Structure formats: C-alpha cells, structure tokens
C-alpha cells in the first residue's frame, strides 16, 4: 500500500509540473489575470460599489452569490457536526462534565475565579494575559468588521477573530462558563443569521433593482446600499462567530 502512495504522488507531481510550466510567468502586470475582469473591477470598483477595499467589493457586490454559498458552507459544517451522535462511546475518556448551572455559577460573582476552574489547569500568567487582552481583541474584531470596506478586513475576518477569542476564553475559563457567552435559546437564531440575512438583503435588492442581490446605483440610494452592505457584514461576522464557537463546543474529544 505504501508504494502505491508514493507512485501516485510522483505521477501527480510530474503531470502538475508539466502543466504549470506552461503558465505565463506570474507577477507581470500584463498577465491575462490582470487585464480582463480584474482590471474592470479596479477601474470602476470604487464608483460602482462605494467601497475602497476591492476584495470586499468583489466578495459582497460583484460575486455576492459566492459569499452566500460560502456562508451556507460554514452553516453546513455546523449542522453536520451537530448531526453526529453525541456523547462518549465505550472507549472514550470518562470525563465528568459538570452540569452548566452547577456550583461554578455560585462563585461567579465572587471575583476569586482562579485558574483551577478550567478543565485543564492553566498557568496564572496565561490566565492573567487572556483576561487582560480579551476586551482589546473584541474591539479589534469589531474594527475589522466596521472598516472592512475601507481597510483589509471584513465579515469573515472578524468572525474568525471572535471565534478565536471565544476558544481562548473557553480554554482559560472552562467550557461551561464560556458556553454561557452564547445562550442556548439564542444559538438557533444566531447560527442561521448568515444565510437568512443574505436571503433578506438579496430579496430587498431584488425588489429595488430587479436583479438578485442588486445594489441601487444612483446617488440618492447611497444610504440604502450602505445599510445593505453593513447588514451582510454583520450577518457574516456574528453568524460565523457563533458557528465557530459551537463547532468548538461540539468537539467533546
């Protein structure tokens, strides 16, 4: 079996190198990739979408349907993980998960929440640093979301940062306390935010301009276009963050 693998790899390598060798050398401004569709986006992008960051413009305006399917993919991942049978099987490590409303909650108001609360003992230094940086990470994520159409950043990036923040908190403060950040009844709504908001915005665009997810081009409707973009960004960010958080929580290793 091992030799079959190596043979397969070499065959793949040979064919790909042969194909790739024929490609035009990258990096030159007049390569076909820059002349055709890309050039038009750069040229008319600002006027048509009102955004400075062309990547976000492509993501939300020119190829908005791709991003809709993208949000659906991340939602599919969550639903897929939730669909699998829960609980440890016969050979899993027997780990007692203390019920969420347990004694831990009693001491939450007392400030003496020590590192020993976490599932895995965490060194005080990490505990302190995370507690200190948590709010700043959150603000940075919000900034990346808000300024997504002017500077590098946007919905997905802020979702990723929020997700990472949630995981850090969960590791440090223990899974149950972090779980209360995303209340159970709200999860069902928040996780569906991405696709549903996209469908709504697309419907609005459809009513206004007759084209699916069409943004009104005239100057008067500038505010409407701005609102649509922000709704999409928020939908992606919040939906994505909640999904990433739930994915982490569902992975009871």
């Amino acid at each position: 079996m091992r030799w079959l693998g190596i043979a397969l790899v070499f065959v793949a390598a040979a064919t790909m190198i042969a194909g790739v060798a024929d490609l035009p050398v990258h990096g030159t401004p007049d390569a076909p990739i820059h002349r055709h569709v890309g050039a038009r986006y750069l040229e008319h992008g600002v006027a048509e979408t009102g955004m400075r960051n062309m990547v976000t413009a492509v993501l939300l305006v020119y190829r908005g349907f791709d991003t809709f399917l993208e949000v659906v993919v991340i939602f599919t991942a969550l639903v897929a993980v939730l669909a699998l049978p829960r609980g440890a099987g016969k050979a899993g490590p027997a780990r007692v998960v203390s019920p969420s409303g347990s004694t831990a909650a009693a001491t939450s108001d007392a400030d003496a929440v020590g590192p020993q609360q976490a599932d895995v003992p965490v060194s005080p230094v990490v505990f302190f640093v995370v507690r200190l940086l948590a709010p700043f990470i959150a603000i940075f994520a919000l900034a990346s979301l808000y300024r997504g159409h002017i500077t590098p950043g946007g919905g997905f990036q802020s979702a990723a940062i929020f997700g990472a923040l949630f995981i850090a908190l969960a590791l440090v403060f223990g899974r149950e306390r972090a779980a209360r950040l995303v209340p159970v009844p709200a999860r069902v709504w928040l996780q569906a935010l991405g696709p549903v908001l996209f469908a709504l915005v697309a419907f609005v665009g459809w009513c206004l301009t007759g084209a699916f997810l069409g943004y009104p081009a005239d100057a008067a409707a500038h505010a409407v276009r701005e609102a649509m973009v922000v709704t999409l960004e928020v939908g992606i960010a919040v939906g994505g963050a909640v999904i990433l958080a739930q994915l982490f929580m569902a992975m009871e290793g």
Partner: protein
Amino acid sequence: MSAAWPTLLPWLVVLPLAGAALVPIVAVGQPRRAGRFTLFVVLLTVVVAAGLVWHLSLTGPFSVSLGGWAAPYGIELRFDRFAAWTLPLAGLFAFVVPFAWRYLDGTLPPERWAVFYALLLLNLGGLLGFSVTADLFNLFVAMEVVSLSSYALVAVAGRGVAAWAALKYLLLGAVSSLLVLFAVGLLFTLTGSLNLLDVTIRLAAGGPSPAANLALASLTVAFMVKAALFPLHVWLPDAHAIAPSPVSAVLSGLVVKVGIVGLLRVLELAVGSGAPLEVFNQVLMLLGAIAIVMGAFLAIFQNDIKLMLAYSTISNIGYIVLGLGLASPFALIGGSVHVFNHALIKVTLFLAAGAIIHQTGFRTLSDLRGVARVMPQTSAAMAIGAVSIVGLPPTAGFVCKWYIALGAFEAGQGGYGFALVFGALFIFVYYVRMLNAFYFQQPVRPEVAAAREPPWSMRGPVLVLAALCLIMGILGGIPLTFVEPAVSDLLLSMGR
C-alpha cells in the same frame, strides 16, 4: 407573468438553502414540525423549478446575471436544457422527505431530526446550485455544499462504523474538490475570467496548451471521483449501505449525478477550447464499460440488499459514462435520459428496501426470506425496481440501454454495445437471488413472518415511484423533448 419566471432562477437555489437555515428554528419546540416545514420548502422549490422548465420549453435556454453585473463581470446562472433535470431532482426530494418522517422514528433521537432535515435541504440546494450555475468558482462552492452535507448524512445514524465510512468518503471527496479548485485556479490564470462560456472562448482563442489540458484532466478526475466511476468508486459501497435509507436514496440517485453533470461541463469546456477530445472520449468509454461489468461482478457476492443496490449504482454510472464517451447522438441522448431514469429507479429501490428494513429489522437476503408474503405491495415495488435497474423492456431502465446500444453501433463501437447489454445481464444474477428470496421461499425469521406493511407515509411514495418507473419506461419519449435539442446543440458545437 411568464416574463418574470427567469428572474426566479436564483431563488430556485436560495430557497432550499435559506430554508435549511430556518429548519432548526422552526423545530425548536416541536421536532415533528421540522419534517413538515422541509416538505413545504421542497414543494415550493418544485413549483419554482416547474415554472422555470415551463418557461424553458417556451423560449429555450435563458440565463440570469446576478447582482445586475453582465456575464463575465458577475456570476451568471444559466438554465439550459440539461438543467431541466432540476425539476425531477426536486420532485424526487418531495418523495424522500415524507418517507423520512416515519423512518426517523427508529433511527434518530428527536432532537437531531431538525439537523437531519436541514442537511437534506442543504443537499438539495447544493445540487440545484451545481446544476444551474455557469460560473466555474460557483460550481466549486456549490459542489462543496453538496459534498459536505453528504458526508454528514452518511454518518448521521450509525455509530463508529458510519463515521469511518463517512471519513473515507470525506477524504476522497475533499481531494477531488481540491482538484476542482486547482483547475479553476489554472483556468482563471490562463483566461482571466471565471464564466464558463467566456473561459471556453478565450481558451479556444489561446490555442491548445498543456496547462489547459492539465486543468481539464484534473476536472475530469475530480468528477470521476464524485461519480464513483469504477477505479475511483471505493468510497461508495460502504457509504451508501451504512447511511439511513432515505439518505442512501438521495446519495445513490442524485448526489452521484454531480459527477456526471460535471463531466458534461468538462465536455462543453473541452469541445469549445479544442482540447484533445478523442483521448477524453476513449477514456470515458473504456472506464464506463469496465464499470458496468465490475459493478455487476462485485455485487454478486453481497448478501446485504443495500450493499447490492449500492454496487448496482456503480454499473449504472458506467452506462451513463459510456454514453457520454461514445459521443454519438443516440448515445448522448441515452446517457442524459438515464441520469433521470436511474435516479428515479434507485430512489424507488432504496426507499422500498428502507421500508422493508424498517418493518422487519433485517438487511440480509437470508433473513428476509418470504417477506413478499407479509409485505406484498412494498415487495412488488422492489420487484419493479429490480426489473428496471437491469434495464428490461417495459421499465425505465430499458430506455437508456436501447439508446446507448444504438449509439454504440452508430459510433462504430459495436464491442461496447455487446459489453453494455451483457454487462447488464450480469446484474440480474443477484437480483434474481433477491426476488427468489422475497417471493419463492418461506419466512425463516419470526419477525419477518410477523411484519406488516409500512405506514402510508412510507408506502405511498414507494408505490407512486414504482408506477413512475413503469410509465417512464413506456413513455420513453417525454424526457426527449428536452434532451434531444440539448444533445444536438452540444453536437453542433462539437462540429459533428
């Protein structure tokens, strides 16, 4: 009103996907409501699809550019005649969902019904998106939605065994998706645009280039994995046998067709860009013929009915690919018509088998002896399905065998005609064993003797589908109204 239909095309895809996001919300208090809501969304999609197909029959292929951006600059959804297959696709889902209502009682705990139905809707949305998009990258993302939901649907009911089958399916599927993404990247670098038509024109202008051939080759290999064509079929039997029956019906009947529709797109790309078509056709013909025989051969030793049905998918995919490879008018018609007919037959067979397993609890032929005495109607549907999967005349399976055999002789490849006809007879060997066990032997197990007909929400879809198998066999002409012009357009562009 009829002018407004085309703009509904994007909603054909968005409805099921947005619906899927709503299913967990709808089912918060009442798990049963998830099933009802899912059927509502599916029926809504069927109505939209019917309207689009009706419009297609009036005006011919039409396309919608999303966001108002003209074709190469925005994403374009194109509803051509091959896309007419989306109506039967959504229609078959409308049969599978009611079947699953009662089927899930025994297999899934109520709290996971909502996510199960959400996965089904995502699968439907992805399939529809894949079939109607005319944009390369959109093709990749839609395929990913279908694959991801299929991996989960395989593992939803079983314990470790199902997870292991699903993981094998996932690893192979992910590699094939990567090959598609790599090909999309290559084509984008070569032509600078992602629209299928635009890429074809620019490739043709650019002349033959190894990079374009590599892109087409990796696309072909990727779609062969998705279609479980013989050498790359290893993931299919375990995945489709272990999955719950409504899921196996969807996987074997519809999701496998993603590979076929993909190969059609590659054919269109290769034709337009002047890539070496003969090599492509030769490979498809050879692999198709081998798949027919090997699929039948491997199935003979199976005792589990769902595993037998999974293996017969492999040989039926062989039919379709052989039809595509022959590339003569009748063969292409046969291959395209069988895309739908096989879906219809396979869904009938898996739902009937699911009903039998649900009522008796057994899966192997030796245990299910004499089941026809206690469940006559479901076994009759199973028998009709068995006869049509082999392709005997009065049923839907025969239509494709007739066309592809005709196409084989038309293309001067008589040998493949023989392989097709006698490869199919190989399949009948194990279906005779199944029918013998069902009809002509006494029940061995007390549970089988005590079994009763399944509830109407399961029996109804199965019986209607079985009747459709027969009707589509006799009225073989109906799908022709769409398939024939589509094939002649394709052949025109192939310069034949």
